[in-house]
């Protein structure tokens, strides 16, 4: 028992070290970062954070990212839940091929696809909108959501469905009040992964936006200038990018942690 937690602690320590270094760099001046080795900032400064909060180009980047990422997460879950149920419960024409085809959409390296994506979304008049990025990110998030959810749904015995129908439940009522609570862990983890993959994706988001929906990850590349990288501001922005995702985990924590704990099966 003791050893078990020591391993976990060591692993978390390993995860925290680079993050600690990021926080450390964000509280130093760029000059200090690049010239001296210091475990804690010698001249503590919050200027890097002040730059971000006082410049609309910076904080609107956060807002844009949060808007399209939330849209993406909600839409991905809404379309993926019924589809995953269909895949886990029924056989239908082309089901196996379709299931695997979904995942193939994650398998193409994006570099060459950027130009056709730009043309497609421009031609339907969605260029530089939040919905465009949300839709484009569904290309890789929906297959992921369907696959993860299908796995969790297949773990729920079919007898539960049948009993509910015998008891006179309609499908929507059964799905929302009985079935979803049983796969809470899966829904929580799926929501987090959709959020995360959309949050960190840079290439598509940058290609499909210019001003109005420009994501934070693209704004960060601004810190490269003639005098090199502005490490202080870049790392401060990096620290701030952690917060929304951490909040999402906080909201879904109970779903991930409880799962079947009600012991209904």
């Amino acid at each position: 028992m003791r050893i078990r937690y020591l391993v976990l602690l060591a692993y978390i320590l390993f995860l925290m070290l680079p993050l600690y270094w990021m926080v450390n760099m964000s509280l130093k001046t760029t000059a200090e970062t690049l010239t001296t080795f210091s475990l804690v900032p010698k001249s503590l400064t919050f200027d890097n954070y002040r730059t971000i909060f006082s410049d609309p180009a910076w904080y609107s980047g956060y807002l844009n990212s949060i808007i399209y990422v939330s849209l993406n997460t909600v839409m991905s879950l809404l379309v993926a839940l019924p589809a995953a149920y269909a895949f886990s419960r029924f056989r239908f024409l082309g089901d196996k091929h379709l299931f695997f085809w979904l995942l193939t959409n994650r398998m193409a390296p994006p570099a060459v696809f950027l130009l056709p994506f730009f043309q497609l979304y421009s031609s339907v008049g969605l260029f530089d909108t939040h919905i465009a990025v949300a839709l484009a990110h569904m290309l890789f998030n929906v297959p992921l959501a369907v696959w993860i959810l299908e796995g969790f749904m297949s773990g729920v015995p079919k007898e539960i469905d049948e009993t509910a129908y015998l008891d006179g439940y309609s499908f929507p009522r059964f799905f929302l009040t009985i079935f979803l609570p049983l796969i809470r862990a899966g829904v929580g983890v799926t929501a987090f992964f959709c959020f995360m993959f959309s949050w960190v994706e840079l290439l598509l988001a940058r290609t499909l936006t210019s001003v109005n929906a420009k994501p934070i990850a693209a704004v960060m590349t601004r810190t490269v200038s003639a005098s090199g990288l502005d490490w202080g501001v870049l790392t401060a922005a990096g620290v701030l990018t952690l917060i929304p995702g951490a909040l999402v985990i906080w909201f879904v924590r109970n779903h991930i942690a409880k799962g079947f704990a009600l012991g209904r099966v």
Partner: protein
Amino acid sequence: MDKPVNQKAWLLVLPVVATVAFSAVIPLMTVVNYSLQDIFDPQTRYFVGTEWFREVLNNPSIRAALGRQLLFSLIVLLIEIPLGIGIALTMPRRGPWVPVCLILLALPLLVPWNVVGTIWQIFARPDIGLLGRLVNGLGIPYNYTGNPLHAWLTVLVMDVWHWTSLVVLLCYAGLQAIPDAYYQAARIDGASRFAVFRHIELPRLKGVLLIAVLLRFMDSFMIYAEPFVLTGGGPGSSTTFLSQLLTTMAVGQFDLGPAAAFSLIYFLIILLFSYVFYTAMVRLGRAEG
């Protein structure tokens, strides 16, 4: 478990097919189109057949990068999957520490990929970085910018740092979905800890493990921003992976034809390996019942 045939299930799947196909079909056809033509400008283009494909397949630097890429993905899977399962098993199942662990584990996943590279670039520096200082302090002369092996190991450790949590979170959610009754039955039978893992936990994790293996394979095979920012592909070309060559070709030189052929071949390689993993793991799962 026999599933009934029900063609109406298509109605439940339709929204997914529509949204994914909207973004998938036209761009893919455009790229296939590029790969068969020599494009000078939108009006002047020639059909060149399979020329670009032959050119890509005979390119020695692409072949070398493919070898590095396969090795990299193999090592990544061999480290991250067992480590991820192990860490998921060490996590507490209930109590106040659960959300703390979940949040700390998830943090590396939330750093934008270009920032991951930039943090590690400083973090691993032997003069001003914590990792570089630590390793050198242990008496190992470590310098990732000069030594190809050190550069490789740094990219590898960075990937383990960045992505193992994904496997942990998937496995942890999978473990939480195992009904308590299974554990009670095992306790009554006097099963050992290993037997519980082997006969209860592992079979029930096969769904999440399948997706974890596929995700980690696909993403590590297409890794771009992190090593590019950390090492720029060097020293020499020791950490130049496939997608870096592809991006140079497509965005840097704007050679759309060869780049399109390259990405289709790239796509087919990933497809082939994923299909093999998929069928192998499904068979294995079925054999165990």
